[in-house]
């Protein structure tokens, strides 16, 4: 039942797309029809999938490394208060410079290969994860902390058993934002300089006026981004089965 609404939305969008083509008689090298995009996807399936797998690896690796670094940073910020004065400026600087502007430098330093794209994705993902998790760690219910204090809990065990679990819903929302942003890092990196990946394929097809292939790459990128997002989202829901938001939804669904 849950699949019906998104499918309907998709069908309506495809219909509008086709209508625009019929009504404006726009040439196929500006806007190809949905049908010819599907046709191009099937015709170039091997090349598209090969490049898509590279982009997927970049996104997932960026997501894992960025989340890990972000998580560690938030824990350090929360556990050793003096570190805030040292880490916070780095965090802000990392966001003050647009990642897009850093892309050429990263490609210069880390090469045309996969590493520079992963680094781009990491830079984009790191900030939302760190900030969301750190906020969560800062905002532990004071009552829980009072309770832990009267139970003679150490700072470490309070962190492990109370602060971290209590901050996980906040961490999860940061991770959701990061997942939605992961493709940006990978694609921008590929645009700036690469010899493989969907971003590369799009530029390559653009140069040869293969607009249908460009759209096919875009389609696969969108599908991958959506699948990645829903995978992360549903795993988070399963992990955070206890969070009030999820329990409320379960009650509504009953």
């Amino acid at each position, binding site marked *: 039942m849950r699949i019906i609404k998104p499918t309907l939305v998709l069908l309506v969008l495809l219909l509008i797309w086709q209508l625009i083509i019929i009504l404006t008689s726009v040439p196929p090298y500006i806007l190809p029809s949905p049908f010819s995009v599907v046709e191009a996807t099937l015709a170039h399936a091997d090349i598209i999938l090969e490049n898509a797998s590279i982009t997927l690896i970049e996104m997932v690796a960026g997501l894992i490394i960025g989340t890990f670094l972000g998580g560690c940073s938030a824990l350090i910020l929360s556990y050793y208060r003096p570190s805030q004065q040292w880490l916070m400026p780095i965090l802000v600087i990392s966001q003050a410079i647009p990642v897009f502007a850093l892309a050429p430098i990263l490609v210069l330093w880390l090469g045309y290969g996969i590493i520079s794209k992963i680094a781009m994705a990491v830079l984009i993902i790191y900030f939302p994860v760190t900030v969301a998790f750190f906020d969560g760690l800062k905002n532990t*219910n004071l*009552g*829980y902390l*009072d*309770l*832990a*204090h*009267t*139970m*003679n*809990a*150490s700072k470490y*065990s*309070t962190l492990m*058993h*109370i602060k971290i*679990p*209590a901050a*996980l819903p906040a961490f999860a929302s940061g991770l959701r934002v990061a997942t939605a942003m992961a493709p940006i890092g990978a694609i921008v990196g590929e645009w700036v300089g690469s010899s493989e990946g969907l971003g590369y394929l799009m530029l390559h097809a653009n140069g040869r006026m293969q607009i249908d292939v460009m759209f096919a790459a875009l389609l696969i990128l969108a599908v991958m981004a959506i699948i990645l997002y829903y995978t992360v989202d549903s795993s988070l829901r399963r992990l955070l089965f*206890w*969070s*009030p938001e999820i*329990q409320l939804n379960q009650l509504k669904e009953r």
Partner: protein
Amino acid sequence: MNPEQSISISIKADRLAFGAVLLFENIDFTLNKNEWSCLLGPSGVGKTTLLRIVAGLVPNIQNVIITCSDNKPLSGRTAYMAQEDLLLPWLSVLDNVLIGFKLRSEMVDKSEALKLLKMVGLSQNINDLPAILSGGMRQRVALVRTIMENRPVILMDEPFSNLDAISRIRMQDMAADLLSDKTVLLITHDPMEALRLGDRIHILSDRPVKFTNPVLPEGTRPRSITDVELLKEQARLLTRLSTASKLDLT
């Protein structure tokens, strides 16, 4: 589990201010061994501040002198029960009850926890998450968690005030039964609760609060709600508190 030797505690301070507001003058009261002492007063009078100081939750308080009858420090010998149940939403009922042991990385005898949960009527719910329990059930879990801490002194900050009238009376009976061998400090704004459970009731109603002679209800706790003397005393206390809070508002 051998309960620690019960103790009495004396609390003294010349004055106690919160920011610029002088809350208390001449604090001098004793929590007698195995007795329930109640601090009864309207919200905002400073009851919670005082309890938090006794619980060691307010850092850098120098002028409050807390002495235990065995001359050892009080720190680490109190269990705390707040108005909110403070159950961790990601842990089951049983794990919530045992959270103190987990936090101290201590070994735990689960059978004691199971026995207590059975006594408060929650043996069917040990694996449930707190979210699916009613307010009264959650507060019973909090009570069992407090008892599991096995501390000689129990500090309770309006623990039953979020409950409906009937659950509240049940909880009072349960707490009175299960905490009969403890030295208890109970904060409440409900005169009936103070009269049912308190062995001595300190009325905090002025600003700054001055400790006067406590009210000493007769009989053993939990006192019956049908006791005529108790109801009369409740009316007297309510009158006294409401005139005092009128003064406070002006």
